[in-house]
């Protein structure tokens, strides 16, 4: 199956056939999807980048070719074009930034960047103080700080280059305005424009700064760490770490079987599979069962609706982590449930709710329902009450049964509204630290000596936690973080963009 069958034939199929066809098509189309990704999506991205750069260069070359001496001076002294045209404030801002940048580079940035290639060479040393006999220490290089400051310096350089380009652009623009004999905007005009036509810049500058500092910077830092041997034995400030190229990736994807010294690859795959299974079941079990509960409560003729809802909502009132810790205590081998079962003579030994891998996986999913169903119930109740009653009435007149009405009216309506919610839930469950960490802590062990102390119920995120907190394998952990970032980003972007809620935004409004 390399091409989809014609539309007409597809339309002839029954619903079940369509589903089966789409299901098979999804998998057979995967190679094509990859092909499209590499032949269409990636080149398009590069093309856009190329056009942007071309735009920049044309601005720069125009400034060089057609600029007067004032504009050309801006190549060296930023803001000169503005200063010479009496736009003092603009010119000064550019100039101040240039001076600050030069000072920063001379006194700090250049030194850090010089060590960026090695991440430090001086180990921490020690000597015995001849007077007191006490061991004292001489400070060495701190690879971690060198890495952080180098990345910071790179950020600053990029920002500076952009500012330099912008200085040429506005400088040349000022020349053009002057040549056209128009009035140049004054400082007062500039400030006014920031509160008016350029108001978006004013508003977005703070969030953008925050995003750069708190999100983009850490991600870039993490990507760099993935190429270092930063771990317990290369741990600043006491010891240095350095670049090791793709070794961490090789460790993760080239590892041997369980039992071998390096079993990262096998463990990673095992955990990834369980993570996806968990996310799928945790999301859809809560979603479907929650919706069913909501439907039951919403049904005409059910009494005490408010009471039922309140009872279910009470579980939300108890903090999630308390519920989970309680469950973990109750279900342990010597916990309340097992003790009772044995006292009553129902079982002879403890049921390994949380101590046997497979049983624990089921237990976790079931316990998660307890935590999650009320939320879906609550949300669906609102949506269900919103569906116009006349839709059901006309369906009834047309002879549709309750199942048909559900499939054709309720489900599409609810799905349409909740697809973004489902996606967030799925992504959230991929990274659901709480449930796993508090219930089992990842136990039981995947195998003795499993890489990073991985357990059978560990998700990637809890494995990552163990790897960082217990084993201190920062380098490999960074590679896994990158993988997780790619997986979650890909799933959320693709599914969200394809969801009906985004495509047909006007429906049902």
């Amino acid at each position, binding site marked *: 199956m390399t091409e989809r069958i014609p539309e007409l034939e597809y339309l002839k199929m029954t619903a079940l056939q369509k589903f089966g066809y789409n299901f098979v098509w999804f998998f057979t189309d995967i190679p094509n999807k990859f092909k499209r990704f590499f032949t269409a999506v990636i080149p398009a991205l590069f093309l856009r980048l190329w056009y942007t750069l071309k735009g920049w260069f044309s601005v720069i070359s125009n400034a060089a070719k057609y600029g007067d001496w004032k504009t050309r001076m801006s190549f060296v002294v930023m803001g000169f074009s503005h200063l010479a045209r009496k736009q003092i404030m603009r010119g000064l801002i550019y100039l101040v930034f240039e001076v600050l940048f030069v000072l920063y580079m001379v006194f700090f940035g250049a030194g850090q960047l010089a060590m960026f290639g090695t991440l430090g060479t001086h180990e921490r040393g020690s000597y015995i103080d001849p007077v007191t006999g006490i061991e004292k220490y001489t400070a060495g290089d701190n690879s971690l700080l060198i890495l952080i400051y180098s990345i910071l310096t790179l950020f600053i350089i990029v920002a500076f280059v952009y500012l330099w380009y912008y200085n040429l652009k506005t400088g040349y623009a000022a020349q053009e305005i002057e040549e056209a004999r128009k009035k140049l905007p004054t400082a007062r005009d500039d400030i006014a424009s920031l509160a008016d036509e350029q108001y978006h810049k004013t508003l977005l500058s703070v969030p953008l*700064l925050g995003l750069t500092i708190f999100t983009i910077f850490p991600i870039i830092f993490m990507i760099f760490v993935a190429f270092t041997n930063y771990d317990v034995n290369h741990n600043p400030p*006491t010891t240095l770490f350095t670049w090791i190229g793709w070794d961490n990736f090789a460790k993760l994807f080239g590892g041997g079987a369980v*039992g071998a010294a390096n079993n990262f690859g096998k463990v990673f795959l095992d955990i990834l599979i369980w993570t996806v299974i968990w996310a799928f079941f945790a999301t859809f079990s809560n979603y479907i069962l929650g919706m069913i509960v909501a439907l039951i409560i919403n049904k005409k003729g059910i009494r005490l609706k408010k009471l039922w809802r309140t009872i279910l909502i009470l579980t939300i009132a108890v903090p999630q982590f308390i519920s989970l810790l309680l469950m973990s205590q109750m279900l342990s081998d010597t916990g309340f449930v097992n003790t009772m079962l044995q006292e009553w003579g129902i079982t002879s030994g403890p049921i390994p709710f949380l101590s046997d891998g497979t049983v624990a996986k089921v237990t976790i999913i079931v316990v998660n329902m307890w935590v999650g169903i009320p939320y879906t119930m609550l949300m669906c109740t609102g949506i269900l009450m919103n569906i116009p009653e006349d839709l059901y009435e006309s369906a009834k007149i047309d002879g549709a049964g309750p199942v048909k009405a559900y499939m054709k009216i309720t489900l599409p309506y609810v799905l349409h509204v909740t697809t973004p919610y489902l996606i967030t839930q799925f992504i959230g469950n991929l990274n659901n630290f709480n449930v796993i960490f508090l219930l089992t802590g990842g136990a039981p062990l995947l195998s003795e*000596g499993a890489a990073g102390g991985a357990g059978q119920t560990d998700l990637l995120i809890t494995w990552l936690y163990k790897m960082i907190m217990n084993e201190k394998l920062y380098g490999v952990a960074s590679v896994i973080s990158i993988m997780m970032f790619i997986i979650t980003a890909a799933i959320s972007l693709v599914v969200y963009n394809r969801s009906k809620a985004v495509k047909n935004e006007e429906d049902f409004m």
Partner: protein
Amino acid sequence: MKKRIISLLACGAIAAGTVMGLSACGGGEDKMIVWGPATQQAVLQQMVDEFLAQNPDITIPIELGIVGEGDAYSKLSQDVEAGADVYAYANDQLVQLRSIGALARVPDAAVTSMKQTDDAGAVESGKIGEYYYGYPYAADNGFFMYYNTDIVPADTKIEDMTLNEILDACAEKSLYFIYQMKTGWYAGSFIYGAGGSYEVTWDGAEPAENGIVCDFDTKKAVAADGTVSEYSAGVIGAQMHYDLGKHDALVDGDDTVITNYLQNKKMGVAITGTWNGKLISENLGDKYAATILPDYESSLDHKTYHWYTFAGYKLYGVNSYSKHPEEAHKLAQFLSSQAMQEKRFDAVEIGPSNKTVAAMDKVKNNVAINAISKQFEHNYVIQKSMPSTYWSAMEAYGTNVIEWTKATTAPSTQDITARIATLVQELKGQTTPQS
């Protein structure tokens, strides 16, 4: 327009706030931090006050922090520079602490003096290579034998009875012998008693390449009288481990089992540590007693062997990143001194590592601590930093012994020899244990 200017100002204020917040970090006042476990905070505060009173030239304020001896590494590894100047740690974290630079060398003069005053094992427990990295103050983490005096016949002393006789005596009185068969901490005890040894050379915080030496399968067992057996230490130990597990009086269980059997008045012997002393003494009343682990007679060559405990110690370490190394070393030495160990025993009953304090009557009158000090005199092996594979390999071996005791046929000497060979391979990290 006006509104916009106001919001513009608001944005500016937020931006300024962020910048100020970022630049406000750093600085901090000059002080020393001391970490100790929660139960010792009050007595630690008294000690620090006394230290400051005795050393009027030290004017740096000293702050206390609650960090248990077992958590020192996990806490310090987060940020060693921001950690305590002086802190209490359990000796099994020694190598890891040193690898992150959290431990400064003890000056030679202090080493000489603590070698004279303190238990040899306790001083050794802070040693890496030829240097020492801690001031010992407690020798109390090990296991020994609590027993119900009912099991001792009228005309005999418990010290003269072998393990085999004690087991039979328990069975006779319908009492039980409680021991943890598979937990890694207990599982190796017979093998160490028969002369086996396990040593790790470290490269940073991980075992060096081929850095693990284990002779359970090659070293011939050494009996209590010094004669050498034809069997290896591992085989002698494993055979006794199996014989013990097979005995009718044996109950394999942890602290909850001990509580259970005490309540049902069925405890004859419990092999455990000082933390259960109070529980057992309250339940047994007059019949409460404790002593060192008994010797045992091997069913293979009928020689008598010792039974060893793992010995764990607690020490005060000085952070090598301390800004006041002189004062920090002085304080650590003070906190582990004889007077302070006595004070600590008075306050929280912790087994002292100081020989003079351990010999005091009030310490000897504490049954559990007296037993552990005696145990730590000869029949012990220091529990150093262990790679995590040690515990899993030992547990897999212990589990295997339990399986043998449940099978209908006893394992042959060949079976045991083969299992010990596997154990040694696992301990050396050549194969991973499969359970």
